């Protein structure tokens, strides 16, 4: 009897399990799938769905990118007394440099996207000869009497090892619901004429931050407004920022912009071949360390507006290549002497003069980059 009861008990348990299995069995092929609804609880209602960080056909997120850039010849000019003392101008270039970026999504869920990244960029200069008859004459005299020259100054500051920017960054995309989102970006950089082993360079960390509130109107349009603290203009600045990403109903063209940093018109040949035309404001402040005891610590305030064409092409699977060419319009290439280790906000009202208010002429540039893109 006991055996019989045990059997009944065990078999009834098995039957119960079999019933549970039945709830997940395949649905008949001819089912009307529009007549299905989410199982509650734990169902996402329309208001609980979260917007994604991209519009349709937006260029893919680059997880790793390695690139190289060359710039055509250009010259540097120094007006005023500094120009008279050092030499009014000299030729520079062609300059060139490598670029590396890596971004890892630490959290990538519908409720939150958190990415951290590393970036490295360097620029090597070729210091040329003085320009103009007067410059050549002054340079000859300075060489004879053994005084400093613009060429020697530039060689000391940027010519010998170039300038580079190294840092880490973080991006947080936090959808609040199906329509609204918050986008935050932060970056810590050390920039200057030194390499990774120079520990003292950590004294000159540059901190950038952006915060944007936005709306994703539909799958093809998202916009946002916010504020940013950055060095894109060559020195510390606070800017209003506007995010605008759009894809036309035809899905052939669109706009990807985060003003005033960049804005591009996008033309999609197909999902594996994309063309861009637009501009980017690129720049930062570089700490210049030299053995020259006479000079104060200098910052190179470098910023340029790049009008460019970009062709992005999928080479294979997740490997993409980007070919970029354009015209580099000089916005700032000035030498500044900040009062201490900390940077300062010059703003629009400061009368503090630059140490050398130099200018560089514009030039063409080209860049090739290989990228590993994200799902």
């Amino acid at each position: 009897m006991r055996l019989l009861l045990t059997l009944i008990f065990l078999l009834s348990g098995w039957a119960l399990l079999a019933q549970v299995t039945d709830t997940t069995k395949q649905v008949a092929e001819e089912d009307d799938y529009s007549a299905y609804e989410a199982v509650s609880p734990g169902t996402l209602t329309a208001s609980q769905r979260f917007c994604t960080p991209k519009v349709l056909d937006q260029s893919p997120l680059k997880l790793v990118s390695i690139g190289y850039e060359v710039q055509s010849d250009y010259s540097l000019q120094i007006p005023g007394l500094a120009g008279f003392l050092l030499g009014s101008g000299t030729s520079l270039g062609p300059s060139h440099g490598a670029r590396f970026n890596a971004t890892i999504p630490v959290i990538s869920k519908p409720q939150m996207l958190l990415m951290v990244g590393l970036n490295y960029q360097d620029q090597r200069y070729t210091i040329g000869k003085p320009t103009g008859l007067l410059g050549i004459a002054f340079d000859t005299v300075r060489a004879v009497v053994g005084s400093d020259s613009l060429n020697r100054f530039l060689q000391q500051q940027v010519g010998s090892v170039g300038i580079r920017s190294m840092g880490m960054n973080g991006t947080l995309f936090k959808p609040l619901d199906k329509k609204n989102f918050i986008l935050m970006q932060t970056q810590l950089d050390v920039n200057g004429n030194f390499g990774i082993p120079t520990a003292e360079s950590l004294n000159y960390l540059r901190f950038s931050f952006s915060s944007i509130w936005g709306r994703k109107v539909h799958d093809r349009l998202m916009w946002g407004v916010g504020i940013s603290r950055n060095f894109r203009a060559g020195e510390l600045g606070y800017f209003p920022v506007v995010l605008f990403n759009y894809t036309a109903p035809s899905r052939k063209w669109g706009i990807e912009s985060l003003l005033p940093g960049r804005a591009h018109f996008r033309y999609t040949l197909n999902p594996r071949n994309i063309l861009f035309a637009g501009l980017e404001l690129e720049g930062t402040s570089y700490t210049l360390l030299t053995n020259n005891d006479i000079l104060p610590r200098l910052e190179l305030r470098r910023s340029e507006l790049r009008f460019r064409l970009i062709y992005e092409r999928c080479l294979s699977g997740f490997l993409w290549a980007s070919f970029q060419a354009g015209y580099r319009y000089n916005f700032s290439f000035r030498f500044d002497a900040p009062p201490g280790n900390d940077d300062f906000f010059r703003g629009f009202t400061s009368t503090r003069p630059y140490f050398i208010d130099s200018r560089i002429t514009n030039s063409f540039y080209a860049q090739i980059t290989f990228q590993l893109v994200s799902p």
Partner: protein
Amino acid sequence: MSKLKFILLLFLTAGVVYATYTPQESDRILGVWEPGNGKARVKIEKIGEKYYGKIVWLKEPDDPKTGQPKLDKNNPDEALRKVPLKGYRLLKDFIYTGKDTWDKGSIYDPENGSTYSCIIKMQDENTLDIRGYIGISAIGRTDVWKRLVKKTP
């Protein structure tokens, strides 16, 4: 007699354990699921020992340009670009590896024609974490899918 009882009990217990942890546990993934964007419904089914998922419903079934059913026009294989998206098998070759996880499969993204490695974890009976990734699972993106059942009249 007691020996017979013991053998019977052992057999039944083994049967219950097998029934509980082998086919039923892995088959919990079967059914109709909706991705996070709500644009499609995917039916996950079992073929042999592996699990596959195909699109059975599209929120916008027709291509606005042609008025015809949407095709897999972004497929890198030109021969497949005229295959209708509805019915397309976008989850492939998943094997149940225990601990509510289906692994070693791939997921196809019709938006860009890319195929990613994929791992599926069941949060609960009605929720799946679908993670597409490149190379290692850390480099990827997770979407949450919800189980759908037929509306009761």
